[in-house]
């Protein structure tokens, strides 16, 4: 697959292109981080972050590539890893208390959301993911979901979102959710 073909696929939200890229560039990116004092686990995590950041940009159609995808990914990895190293060195000098409570709170919220999403059903979950994370166009969402057209996708998304808001608001007080 050429870079252009990969990009075209990603723009349509074809996740097999993501798999392909992941596999193709894995060694190069992960080895770069390992060579720079990272563990395999850390390297994998950074690489996934980088790849998903790329996926989001590319799927939304907001990215115009002027270099090879691998070059681009490589530089994202380097930057993310540099930041991570910074963060680690700062952390070792500071107290870590604040961060722990933070992630607990996040976990709670994630659980809550996943419960609601599961209640809404697979279709709604996918639409909301594609719209809010992958940032696909309504046309692409319709295509991927097998809807008649973008209008159908838009209506469905609207209904799903409304239902989700309602579920979350009624089950849990807004205040809980906010902080």
């Amino acid at each position: 697959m050429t870079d252009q073909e990969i990009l075209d696929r990603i723009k349509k939200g074809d996740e097999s292109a993501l798999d392909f890229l992941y596999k193709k560039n894995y060694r190069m990116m992960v080895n770069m981080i390992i060579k720079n004092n990272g563990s395999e686990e850390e390297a994998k995590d950074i690489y996934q972050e980088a790849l998903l950041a790329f996926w989001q940009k590319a799927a939304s159609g907001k990215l115009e590539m002027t270099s090879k995808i691998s070059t681009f990914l490589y530089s994202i990895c380097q930057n993310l890893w540099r930041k991570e190293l910074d963060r680690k060195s700062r952390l070792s000098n500071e107290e870590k208390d604040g961060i722990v409570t933070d992630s607990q709170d996040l976990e709670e919220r994630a659980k809550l959301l996943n419960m609601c999403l599961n209640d809404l059903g697979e279709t709604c979950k996918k639409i909301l993911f594609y719209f809010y994370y992958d940032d696909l166009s309504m046309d692409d969402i319709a295509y991927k979901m097998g809807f008649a057209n973008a209008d159908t996708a838009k209506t469905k998304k609207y209904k799903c979102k409304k239902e989700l808001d309602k579920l979350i608001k009624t089950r849990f007080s807004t205040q809980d959710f906010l902080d």
Partner: protein
Amino acid sequence: MFSTEDYNEKIDAYLKGNLSPDEAKVFESKLHSDPALKSEFLFQQSLLADIQASRKSELKARLNNINIPAEKPAYWKYAVLAGIATTIFVAINYLPDNILKNDKAEIKTATSDKLENLGKGVAFDKSEAEEIEEEDKADLQAKPTEAPEEAKSNPTESKKVVSNPEKDSGKEVLPNLPDVHTPESYGNDHVGKDVETPDHNLTKTKQINTTVAGVEVVKSKKHKFHYQYFDNKLFLYGDFDTKTYDILELNNSKGQKLYLKFESNYYELQPDRTEISKLEIVKNRETLKELEEIQKK
């Protein structure tokens, strides 16, 4: 004054970064003067962040399920990586720290400017570059193995690789670097998911490894004899529900490719067809012979 529906549309657009700077300003000032809007906004902001986090962990789980083959040595590839490494090394110095928030413009300058310079120092030798690409194609099993740093010990070769067989100018060196092909990049685009047993319709199917996660038959008025790949699946458009068909996989020097056998004819399934395409009959005699061979086995 907004209605609730308008609120939500605006909030979505704002949070997704789809408002123009002017619209965003108007929205922000409304936010300050309208407490109801503000509280809804804060609710939506954290909800969207949670939705995104949830999707992200879903995708990460997907990636974690992908099996990465073990490393294999492939020395000549160091050269390729050295080329990339050097270029990136130069380019990186020009990228501001927070690349993710940067717009394409900055990346463009960083890469193309520096690449241009780099290109100037590169020796061009068409035949050699092509040769290496050929070698690349032949070595389907090879993976990028080592971090680029190691490769610096081999500077001569790296120059050959970075040369550009198609254009005369030294610009855009990187886009023409030979791809380091994984087996999947040949013959099929799909990362090797384990085979789900294809449809019950596939009668005499030979092993379909690493190719498609499934076959789906679609009835369509417009497309009567077509196919396409999407999301790891092969979609066949037409009357395939009532008649039998076979999907055959052929591995030869050109790579791995799928063929459809239908009513004693063979049709090509080009792996890069992500648009709905007409099924085209195989005419190449050698291919036909090979396909007959597999059937006999």
